[in-house]
């Protein structure tokens, strides 16, 4: 399969109203918390007030006797998995066993007739703790004599000789950086730090679970992958996955944070014990205290350059504070900073444990921290060499065949095209406004493929239903319908895209890594192509011609000398030509294409208060091919807004006891509408040769460039280099005072 050069499509690239849109604007869309079952109970959790402690005893007797209470569970209600089991950490995170690993860690849960009753009962559970030393920062975690954060942690992906605070290590090296630095005309070295930040989806985690007397469980959940929910819930409960049926509810944002589970096994156990359906919904406070922030990080970067602006070497140490346990699959994202042809490179990334919530994926995991550092240092080099910030990047940008940090050559990529798009944009060519400054930053993400399934049914009226297993976070159903419309040659509104549950569609991996439109889209295309072959064969039967004589053109079977036979006419004769028209395709997709982005920002700094106002923002990103441009723009704009929040104000604030001080949307400050300008988008289309329509996937990359883009603008505005996120007013004012 290769993408057509300069393809002209009928449907791909158009902007129809999304098929699920109507339900979402009239309030009918069902998210998990919107579902109620007769007789359902409500839950409340008791969570640890300590960052690290041994649980000496839990007394739930008083709670169990309280009004309305039907069941209480603790860690004792769950099997202990082997620490090498891939689901071990999730199992412990869902409900603490003997030790609490962070403030907010679940210790017990109650199911009762009302939430108020459940809350009262949870508060009546008596726990005796023995406090243990708590590690609340990367530096403490990596200190020589550091106490263990989690006695079950074994360093991943490398040989390990026992428990440690090191979660993962990833080293990449080529050339000789020492020699290159010695030869360089200019070497800039800086250390950066970033805070824990949350994905900040507006919908708190929620599920409804009904375990029947036959021991089978029905789960309705908002997640990025219901097959993941099934697998991990089963693992935590010690069940076979097939005992569980998961129906995907609409999902109210995830950004990586809903690629894991928190509530489902607990609700299942409570349902099993009580014999009643159980609805479990987190409060915002619980979301922030106990679900996946992205890691805090410390990044040291040293880059050498010639006086002409050739970047000759990079050395980087990237330390990520990954929380109390690690399912942080590698730190490859940290390597995404190698967007330039460094002949000499040495990058070491580590994940270190802390007694803070177990981190979870967040849009381009680990890349934003790294890009903040590297793109800041490159900007500093450009300033010192008096080079245009885009020119220095163009001069060094990787192209097809250049090695990634891991050494593997890049496939066809669009970094240069994105740089040129910003360079040639009206924004970049216009003068910087009076009193403002302009910054540039870039980023990329590898993207991933993984497993997807799709079934396409042609209905008797000539419409088609496209069934996939990829939860739709940002409009992917519309993209599936567009690709199916293109393949089948029928109107996109005659296609109904559906996200089906674990028993009604083939296995499909999580919606993550910008893979849904890429990989699931490929499954849809494959199913449609098989369907078209079938349609042609049926048409041949109806028309009385050889199958080879039939072509499929614009939704019609065409054969010489015959009237064209539209899809609806073939569908009407399905029974007499062989039965229902349906095809299923499944795959494990390779060839996800990396997506690059280049951002440009104008901002003003109030030098008396340290307040930053974003005045203008433009992003250019390589989408491969934009199937539905509006939702590609939406991904670019949404990622950018999250990055702006990360850059300016978002951070976890802990007290000395590891208690989060700002566990609410009042003080965990995600951007509001009045904080942002319009975010102009330039969709660059360098088709991914591995996808039939050239799709790359665009979800992740947008969050990578904003931190450096903004930092670089602040430097140009104030002559101060900000190296710590968030660049909040107090921090900026402090640095300005040091001038």
């Amino acid at each position, binding site marked *: 399969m290769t993408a057509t050069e300069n393809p002209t499509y009928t449907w791909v690239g158009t902007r129809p109203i999304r098929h699920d849109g109507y339900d979402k604007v009239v309030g009918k869309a069902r998210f998990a918390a919107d579902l109620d079952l007769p007789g359902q109970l409500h839950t409340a959790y008791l969570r640890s007030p300590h960052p690290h402690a041994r649980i000496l005893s839990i007394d739930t007797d008083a709670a169990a006797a309280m009004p309305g209470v039907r069941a209480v569970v603790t860690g004792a209600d769950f099997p202990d998995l082997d620490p090498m089991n891939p689901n071990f950490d999730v199992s412990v995170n869902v409900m603490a066993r003997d030790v609490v690993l962070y403030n907010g860690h679940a210790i017990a849960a109650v199911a009762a007739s009302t939430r108020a009753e459940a809350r009262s009962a949870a508060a009546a559970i008596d726990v005796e703790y023995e406090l243990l030393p708590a590690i609340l920062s990367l530096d403490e975690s990596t200190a020589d004599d550091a106490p263990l954060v989690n006695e079950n942690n074994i360093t991943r992906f490398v040989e390990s000789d026992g428990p440690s605070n090191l979660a993962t290590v990833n080293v990449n090296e080529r050339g000789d950086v020492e020699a290159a630095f010695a030869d360089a005309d200019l070497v800039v070295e800086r250390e950066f730090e970033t805070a824990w930040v949350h994905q900040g989806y507006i919908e708190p985690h929620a599920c409804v679970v009904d375990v029947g007397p036959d021991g089978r469980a029905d789960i309705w959940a908002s997640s990025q992958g219901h097959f993941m929910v099934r697998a991990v819930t089963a693992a935590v409960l010690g069940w076979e996955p097939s005992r569980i049926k998961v129906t995907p509810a*609409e999902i109210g944002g995830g950004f990586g944070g809903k690629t894991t589970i928190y509530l489902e096994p607990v609700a299942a156990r409570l349902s099993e014990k009580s014999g009643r359906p159980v609805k479990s919904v987190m409060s915002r406070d619980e979301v922030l205290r106990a679900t996946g922030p992205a890691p805090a990080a410390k990044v040291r970067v040293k880059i050498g350059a010639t006086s002409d602006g050739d970047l000759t070497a990079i050395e980087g140490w990237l330390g990520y504070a990954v929380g109390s346990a690690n399912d942080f699959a590698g730190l490859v994202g940290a390597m995404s900073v190698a967007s330039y042809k460094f002949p000499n490179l040495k990058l070491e990334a580590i994940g270190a444990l802390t007694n803070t919530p177990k981190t979870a994926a967040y849009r381009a995991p680990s890349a934003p921290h790294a890009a903040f550092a590297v793109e800041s240092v490159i900007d500093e080099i450009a300033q010192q060499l008096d080079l245009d910030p885009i020119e220095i990047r163009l001069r060094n940008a990787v192209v097809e065949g250049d090695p990634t940090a891991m050494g593997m050559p890049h496939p066809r990529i669009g970094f240069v095209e994105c740089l040129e798009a910003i360079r040639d944009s009206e924004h970049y060519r216009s003068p910087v406004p009076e009193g403002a400054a302009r910054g540039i930053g870039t980023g990329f993400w590898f993207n991933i493929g993984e497993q997807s399934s799709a079934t396409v049914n042609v209905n008797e009226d000539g419409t088609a239903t496209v069934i996939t297993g990829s939860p739709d976070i*940002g409009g992917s159903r519309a993209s599936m319908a567009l690709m199916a419309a293109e393949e089948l040659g029928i109107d996109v509104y005659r296609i109904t895209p559906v996200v089906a549950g674990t028993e009604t569609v083939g296995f499909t991996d999580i919606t993550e890594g910008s893979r849904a439109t890429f990989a699931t889209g490929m499954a849809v295309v494959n199913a449609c192509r098989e369907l078209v072959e079938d349609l042609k064969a049926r048409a041949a039967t109806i028309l009385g011609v050889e199958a080879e004589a039939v072509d499929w053109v614009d939704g019609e079977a065409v054969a010489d000398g015959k009237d064209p036979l539209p899809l609806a006419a073939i569908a009407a004769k399905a029974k007499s030509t062989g039965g229902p028209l349906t095809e299923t395709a499944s795959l494990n997709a390779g060839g996800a294409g990396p997506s690059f982005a280049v951002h440009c920002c104008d901002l003003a700094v109030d030098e008396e208060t340290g307040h930053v106002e974003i005045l203008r923002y433009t992003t250019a990103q390589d989408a491969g091919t934009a199937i*539905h441009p509006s939702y590609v723009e939406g991904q670019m704009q949404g990622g950018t*807004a999250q990055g702006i929040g990360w850059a300016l104000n978002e951070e976890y604030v802990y007290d000395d006891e590891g208690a989060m001080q700002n566990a609410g949307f009042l003080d965990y400050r995600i951007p509001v509408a009045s904080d942002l300008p319009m975010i102009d988008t330039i969709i660059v289309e360098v088709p991914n040769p591995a996808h039939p329509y050239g799709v790359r996937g665009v979800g992740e990359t947008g969050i990578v460039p904003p931190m450096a883009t903004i930092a670089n603008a602040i430097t140009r505005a104030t002559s101060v280099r900000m190296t710590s996120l968030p660049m909040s007013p107090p921090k900026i004012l402090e640095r300005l005072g040091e001038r």
Partner: protein
Amino acid sequence: MSRTHVTCTVNGDEVDFLAADDTSLLDALREELGLTGAKEGCGTGDCGACSILLDGRLNCSCLVFAPEAEGRDIVTVEGLADGDHLHPLQQAFLEGAALQCGVCTPGFLVAAKALLDENPDPTETEIRYGLAGNLCRCTGYDKIVRAVQEAAVQLNGAGK
């Protein structure tokens, strides 16, 4: 547990329900009346996902106690469309792709209606400040602001 009987008008219909006095109006709408369009994103008035109109004024229903609704007129997202005819804001949100996950959308639509009811021709800045009580994490607000601008044009063009 004693519950208070509350009678009010919701989306033009007179309704009544029983609710404990410390129940929020949000929970009463969702659980007693089955109107799950309004969402709980925070429960503390900081995200706007539960926005409703109470006697025509924009409110976070999570901050209103259910008994306060007695005798009041309530409009939720379910009441914005006129039968099958979408409100211009709803149409503009659909056409402008002003939603991604859709969980904040009901609150935005209600807040935007309140804004345009009061200020039929808002500037971009007025829209941004007027909607600052509604958090969206998916869109970066760009397409939401544009959709409200488009809806304002539609509403004004309709001779209102």
